[in-house]
């Protein structure tokens, strides 16, 4: 089982970036069926392997969490302090 080539990688990354851009523009957390980003999601899933899609989905939520912490700061969970 060979690896995704350089070309396949760049196609996948391109589709991912377009999908993420759409989500950002529409303020969506993930694509909803019939929503504006559903089509992008379909291309993205076709261009990348299932593992990569899973990986990038997780990466996106991590990046959003990181961005939130960096820009809005964090709230201390009072229950955990007790």
């Amino acid at each position, binding site marked *: *089982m*060979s*690896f*995704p*080539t*350089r070309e396949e*990688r760049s196609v996948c*990354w391109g589709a991912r970036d377009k999908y993420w851009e759409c989500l950002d523009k529409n303020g969506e957390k993930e694509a909803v069926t019939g929503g504006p980003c559903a089509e992008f999601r379909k291309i993205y899933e076709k261009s*990348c*392997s*299932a*593992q*990569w899609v*899973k*990986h*990038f989905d997780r*990466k996106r939520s991590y990046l959003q969490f990181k961005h939130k912490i960096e820009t809005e700061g964090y709230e201390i969970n009072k229950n955990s302090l007790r």
Partner: protein
Amino acid sequence: MSGVSSNFLRIISKKFQTSRVSTNLLERRNITLLNYTRNCSTKPPQPKPQKGFVTWKSVATTGILGGGFLAFMLYLKKEKEFAQVQERQRMLGKAAIGGYFELVDSSGKTRTSQDFHGNWLLIYFGFTHCPDICPDELEKMAAVVDNLDKSEDTPKVQPIFISVDPNRDTPEIVGKYCSEFSPRLLGLTGTEQQVAKACKAYRVYFSAGPKDKDSDYIVDHTIIMYLVDPDGEFVDYYGQTRNSEEIADSIKINMLKYGQLHKKSWF
């Protein structure tokens, strides 16, 4: 009467003659005096030359002694600096990173860590199915090597990619993968044991994730580049946050330090 007068005349003329001679003598003496005074102005009577304080001999002696002393001081300074560098390294201690490995290159040939002695190595661990981090890091590594290759006075660095996914990454696949990034990049893989041993030596963590229905999986692993010196010793490491220029600069500095410690000359 005529005899007397003639006598008289003879005496007169004789007297006159003597007076003329005397004036002649006087003139001559004047000339010599004049000559003497003229000579005096150009050539004073020369005294015997005396020995001065600064002579060529004393200058040469001082030069040799001073030069020798300066050379000695410079030598002492170098010795002290060398001892300082050594002491600093001793105090920092040596990280228990790196060591012997035995892996297989893309042509199926076994390569051990000893084969690379005498070369600077930049080692990265990864796998060919890596979604984004490995390709990024390998592009960075290729840029670092390009940067170092361009500067003529630095030794060559051998970039090495070691697979942490020996089940999927055969020598051939690893070779093909590496050639996508740089013709200089050497790809190594091996049996599970060989890879595990190499990873253990470099303290690299790797763990294959669960397989999906296509039996595809992602391997979680340490993202670090290791710099190894020509003695096969680990020198420095570079994480994901360092860019290619920072890494290249750090490698150059490490090479300079290594050169200082391994110089085989007095000065």
